[in-house]
């Protein structure tokens, strides 16, 4: 399939999970796992007569995010109503923001940098809105198409969301995923969103292929799924184009079970949201002083942190960028470094090449990682003290990650201490020589066969023998055989 010109834009909805209450009422925001309809009040239930009052901290956090994304913050922000009927929307309108008809969202413009294939690319932000989350629909049969009725839980209704809309600057599913990862890292570093929480980060994607119509994909639950959904769409649209079928502008729904996109809204063109100002909420004036205050209180952002890693720890830009892709990893690195006290580059190396690779392979989320910073320090010290070999380190690292046991514990359990005792190794080498007489004769003339013998020693010691020492001793003993000192 030929390369087609792909344009991808994202509309990301992020919950401000760090807030203790909802956006327009004081219901606790800690609704996950709670019985339905137990975190609601007249306001978020949309009872007749209830009125919204804005959460002060939500504005603080929104300004922080806008600053981190280099956006221009509006001096006066207002809220608008977006009207549509749906059972998850208690008022049948959503209080949100709008950028026309006198509306003013929290911020306009901005950008963030992603690293893709070693290159830096800028993804532009179109706007940032503050808005409320609707409730949750539950389908008794598990599927929207077969349920004879719908169950509604309004616990999530009214939770504060930031809607971050990008320009269609991404050209591949991988870039979209990179954008979302970077955004997530920024939000985690700011401390406004624990993006590990289920449903805390949702995205809708807009994609057009080869200059064709724009297709919107909704209901993508996580950044991982975004990549899958987009990849599927590119194939679907490319195939259509190849067959001469015109791709129409529509909204599709990502079916997570079947891993395909399906058409959704039939009356899309009839959606008229009738945006108009929310008269129950007076405007909010954002002064320059206030913005400065927020800026001064902002924690270190990923890019700045990466620069610091380069400057203070002598890491390469690439290494630093990898470490800051998630706040968890960057924190883990610096905590481990504190315990380790040795060369940062060595630690970075293990984390990036061994630790991270395995975590990605198993698709582990930070809360499944049980390894502690002290463990990394211990691991490195054991390696440097030649108690274990790099092979053993790679061997036991997965278990440390998954079980949280210390390296020492695992080594003892599995009896993996590196053999560095010369006499012990000599004995084993001799055993090997006796068992593989042919190979010994070979080795006397052929260098390659030496490696075979070393391999056999490693096998016998289950990898515990110090490779360097083993190599030295094998060579020494071969010489002795050649000179007739050792007879096999």
């Amino acid at each position, binding site marked *: 399939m030929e390369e087609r010109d792909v344009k991808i834009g994202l509309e990301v909805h992020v919950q401000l999970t760090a*807030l*203790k*209450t909802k956006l327009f009422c*004081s*219901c*606790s*925001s800690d609704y996950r796992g709670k*019985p*339905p*309809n*137990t*975190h*609601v*009040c*007249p306001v978020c*239930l949309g009872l007749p007569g209830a009125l919204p*009052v*804005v*959460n*002060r*901290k*939500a*504005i603080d956090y929104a300004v922080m995010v806008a600053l981190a994304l280099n956006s221009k913050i509006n001096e*006066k922000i207002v809220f608008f109503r977006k009207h549509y*009927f749906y*059972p998850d929307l208690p008022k049948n309108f959503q209080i949100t923001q709008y950028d026309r008809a*006198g509306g003013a969202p929290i911020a306009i413009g901005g950008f963030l940098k992603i690293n893709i294939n070693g290159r830096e690319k800028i993804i532009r932000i179109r706007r940032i809105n503050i808005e409320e989350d609707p409730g949750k*629909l*539950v*389908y008794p049969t598990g599927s*929207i*198409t077969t*349920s*004879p*009725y*719908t*169950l*509604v*839980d*309004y616990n999530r209704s009214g939770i504060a969301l930031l809607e971050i809309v990008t320009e269609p600057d991404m050209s591949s599913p991988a870039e979209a995923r990179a954008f979302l990862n970077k955004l997530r890292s920024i939000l985690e570093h700011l401390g406004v969103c624990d993006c590990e929480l289920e449903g805390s980060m949702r995205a809708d994607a807009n994609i057009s292929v080869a200059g064709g119509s724009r297709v919107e994909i909704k209901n993508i639950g996580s950044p991982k799924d975004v990549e899958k959904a987009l990849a599927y769409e590119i194939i679907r649209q490319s195939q259509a184009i190849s067959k001469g079928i015109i791709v129409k502008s529509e909204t599709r729904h990502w079916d997570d079970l079947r891993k395909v996109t399906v058409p959704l809204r039939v009356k899309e063109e*009839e959606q*008229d949201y*009738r945006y108009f*100002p929310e*008269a129950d*909420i*007076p*405007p*909010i*004036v954002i002064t320059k002083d206030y913005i400065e205050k927020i800026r001064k209180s902002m924690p270190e952002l990923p890019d700045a942190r990466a620069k610091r890693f380069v400057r203070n720890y002598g890491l390469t830009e690439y290494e630093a960028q990898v470490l800051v892709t998630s706040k968890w990893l960057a924190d883990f690195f610096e905590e481990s470094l504190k315990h380790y006290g040795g060369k940062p580059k060595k630690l970075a190396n293990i984390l990036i090449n061994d630790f991270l690779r395995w975590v990605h392979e198993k698709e582990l989320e930070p809360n499944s990682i049980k390894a502690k910073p002290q463990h990394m320090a211990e691991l490195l010290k054991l390696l440097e003290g030649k108690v274990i070999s790099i092979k053993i380190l790679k061997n036991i690292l997965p278990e440390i990650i998954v079980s949280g046991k210390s390296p020492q514990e695992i080594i003892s359990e599995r009896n993996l201490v590196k053999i560095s005792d010369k006499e012990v190794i000599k004995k084993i080498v001799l055993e090997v020589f006796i068992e593989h007489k042919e190979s010994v004769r070979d080795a006397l003339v052929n260098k390659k066969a030496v490696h075979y013998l070393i391999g056999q020693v490693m096998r016998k010691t289950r990898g515990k023998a110090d490779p360097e020492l083993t190599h030295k001793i094998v060579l020494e003993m071969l010489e002795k055989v050649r000179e007739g000192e050792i007879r096999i």
Partner: protein
Amino acid sequence: MRRKIVITEELMDHLAWLARIKLTENEKREFLRDLNRVLEFFNEIDKVDVEGIEPTTHTALLTNVLRDDVPHKPLPQAEVLYNAPEKENGYFKAPKIL
């Protein structure tokens, strides 16, 4: 520059759909007449020159009305569901989606 607008049956059907209000045939007939009269009434503001005038949404000149991020007690589930025409296991029961 004023466009002469008339509420046609098609437009009225569209508006009734947007508002999710099912009208009976009688109502449709009656409303078509009434609504166009109301529209004529609306049109009186055509005569006003509003060049350079900003719209007013809020008459009380308030700004920055904000609330502290402190949780309150929610409504008990029983009270939340008390008025629900249909409910099941703590959920509101709504009609099917598709």
